[in-house]
């Protein structure tokens, strides 16, 4: 009797769970229709440099390593990896994996891929793999990487372009055409590309993971205009959109048949400073700038409250961020005191490049007004992006730039790029010796916990030295039809549609 009761309860529970759509079993079939802002530049993962390509590349190319929602590494085509010593990384590969053209995936294929990704004449990611000295095939499913120096950032680099595996036979056969007719080992194959309009991906029937993918295919339509994407979702022409314009988000949020996602990303808005130029070479002057900015007001007015103020180069949910740090307070009185400390009682003037679009100019003007209140005058230079970026980073023509930092999978890529004296995004090559020692140390330890501790220290010094002027986190704003299930947003803000399935109707 007792047993029957338990069974009944279980059955009832199961029926109830089954009725709850959120807990329903994934269903196979259907085509997910997606609208993206930009077209893929090339389907050759090693050749492209555009950050908007990933949404096209993820479905076609499986990666050696995958990442979870906090961007920590998870097994991918490499089932596991180990570091017997800091200058050796051993990858153990998954068996029974095939590329779309039937080529088997094995250690030779990995070797081919990594050598290609290191080849200067082909690859746009040479700098990420610069520390790999040799790629050795140990056996059919084991690869040993010999490193010039310890490099813990490699594992997460393998979640990105550098870890995307292309079919060696297809590359040899297709040559330059590979970028237009790609062959990977991912869940979907490219079946039709209508340049300027759409990309059609179809289910790869022999994908290694049983039962995956759920969808029959993905149809990506290119819609550069934000309002157009919103309209397409509203009218039911597409099931998923990203980069929703902030002003449209609130109205979309409550709409019937639509669900939205808002979350942080690794990207954040900041003021880039050329710290080799006076007076920005003085810590107190930089502190004054940081103290004079009212970040909460910027979030409210420029971002409609859709994000958080930025504290460190990383959002609080990211594994490398330091939760103990507080955001810079808005303290004009202290800012003025800092100016006196810097020997600039009357303030100073600097020029700042900004993109000419209204939202960017609006943000820059708000900052300009806030800084003016403590006596720092900002000379705004609205300038077309390509020209501004070139002028600021390469030409050192301006003191500052108000741009976004687009996130990278590994924290080393971010902090080294912006704060190391060799970093490209540090145009004055300003050096904080303590910071550089810590970066090198963090690169040479492989345990995530140890790395975390080091990056939290790095975060702290970045704030202490006021080498960063963080403003706010760039939010991920996505919208989808209510029948889209299983979607996992990520901190890169680049949707991968792994695990997505469709309920029959909205």
């Amino acid at each position: 009797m007792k047993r029957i009761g338990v069974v009944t309860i279980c059955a009832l529970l199961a029926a109830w769970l089954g009725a709850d759509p959120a807990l329903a079993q994934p269903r196979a079939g259907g085509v997910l229709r997606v609208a993206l802002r930009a077209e893929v530049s090339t389907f050759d993962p090693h050749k492209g440099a555009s950050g908007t390509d990933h949404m096209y590349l993820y479905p076609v190319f499986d990666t050696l390593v995958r990442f979870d929602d906090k961007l920590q590494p998870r097994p991918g085509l490499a089932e596991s990896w180990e570091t017997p010593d800091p200058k050796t990384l051993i990858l153990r590969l998954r068996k029974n994996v095939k590329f779309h053209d039937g080529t088997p995936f094995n250690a030779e294929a990995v070797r081919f891929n990594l050598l290609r990704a290191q080849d200067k004449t082909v690859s746009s990611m040479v700098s990420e793999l610069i520390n790999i000295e040799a790629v050795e095939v140990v056996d059919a499913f084991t690869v040993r990487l010999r490193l010039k120096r310890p490099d813990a950032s490699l594992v997460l680099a393998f979640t990105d372009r550098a870890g995307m595996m292309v079919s060696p036979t297809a590359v040899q056969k297709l040559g330059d055409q590979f970028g237009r007719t790609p062959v990977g080992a991912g869940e979907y194959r490219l079946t039709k590309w209508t340049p300027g309009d759409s990309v059609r991906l179809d289910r790869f029937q022999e994908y290694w993971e049983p039962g995956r993918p759920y969808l029959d295919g993905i149809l990506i339509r290119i819609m550069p205009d934000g309002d157009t994407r919103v309209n397409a979702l509203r009218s039911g022409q597409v099931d998923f959109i990203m980069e929703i314009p902030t002003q449209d988000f609130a109205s979309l949020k409550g709409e019937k048949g639509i669900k939205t996602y808002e979350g942080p990303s690794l990207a954040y808005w900041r003021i880039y400073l050329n710290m080799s130029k006076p007076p920005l070479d003085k810590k107190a002057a930089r502190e004054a700038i940081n103290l004079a900015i009212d970040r909460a007001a910027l979030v409210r007015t420029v971002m409609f409250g859709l994000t958080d103020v930025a504290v460190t180069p990383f959002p609080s949910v990211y594994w490398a961020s330091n939760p103990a740090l507080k955001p810079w307070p808005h303290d004009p009185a202290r800012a003025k005191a800092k100016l006196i400390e810097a020997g600039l009682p009357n303030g100073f003037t600097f020029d700042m490049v900004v993109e000419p679009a209204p939202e960017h100019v609006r943000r820059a003007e708000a900052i300009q007004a806030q800084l003016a209140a403590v006596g720092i005058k900002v000379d705004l230079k609205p300038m077309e992006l390509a020209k501004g970026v070139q002028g600021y980073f390469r030409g050192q023509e301006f003191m500052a730039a108000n741009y976004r930092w687009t996130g990278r999978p590994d924290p080393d890529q971010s902090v080294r790029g912006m704060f190391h004296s060799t970093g490209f995004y540090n145009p004055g090559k300003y050096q904080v010796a303590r910071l550089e020692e810590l970066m090198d140390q963090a690169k040479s330890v492989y345990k995530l916990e140890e790395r975390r501790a080091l990056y939290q220290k790095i975060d702290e010094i970045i704030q202490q030295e006021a080498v960063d002027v963080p403003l706010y986190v760039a939010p991920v704003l996505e919208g989808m039809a209510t029948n889209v299930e299983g979607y996992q947003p990520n901190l890169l803000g680049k949707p991968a549609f792994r695990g997505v399935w469709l309920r029959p109707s909205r």
Partner: protein
Amino acid sequence: MGAFLRRRLLAVIPLVLLVTSLVFSLVLLLPGDPAVALVGLENVTEEKLAAIRERMGLNRPLYVQYGLWLARAARGDLGTSLRTGQPVIEALRDRLPVTLGLAVAATAFGLLLGFPLAVVAASKRGGFMGSCASGIAAFGVAVPNFWLGSMLVLALALHLRWLPATGYASPLEAPWDGLRHAILPTLTLGASAVAEITRQLRSALQDTLNTDYVRTARAKGLAERGVIWKHALRNALIPMITVSGLTISRLVGATVVVESIFALPGLGRLNLEAVLTRDFPMLQGAVLVMVLIVIAVNLVSDVVYGWVDPRIRLS
């Protein structure tokens, strides 16, 4: 007529040369180095840039670059996209029908609606109907494409759900779907055409209605309808050839906005994307084709004008 045609065609050649040289040099004047855009700013090294400039011929003098470009263009080779590697000519071939179709449909819509509106506005001047017609024309001139497009989408696609909000379907492959997708962009783009044609035809018609021969016709006791349709309209129509030509030319330019709003894979959007990504060969090709369309339309309307009105041929 033969001599006139020859003269007109010959005049096009220096025009094309002038325009192509302008297109070529203007594109090169755009800020931002295409070589840098190609490798990504971060990966830039001087030797890499030099190699790319060498490969793309960017290190040669401007006139040499132009000469080479022109020679290749004359053979139908406009190079390949810096971004995607697609041959430019292939991209243009895919996208031209979308833009041309849209411009022609919008002009047809403009004529279809502008014609009766103009007649009403001219003949019922001062009356309620006349004021309405003039009002519609004024509205069409004043309202911006992007606003009208958004309003139409809001009403007809999102609210009433009659038509798709975005996208393109080829009318040759799927006639019904193609038609449904074409309606909103055509209305959006055609609004200004309606206005332009109404205004021009109305004023031409009004001028004609004030001429002596119309007064004579009226004096003979002809019904007003006969006066307008039989006598006045025919003469007033001649300037419409030019107006239609100008309208098509203008609409080709306006497609940049409309194609963005409705996510149509046309030349206008190709242009915009090429500018944003510093895809110079693509941009040169797309601008060239748009300019050639405008020149061709003007040539055709000139020739038709000459054919209809012999006085033009002699001048």
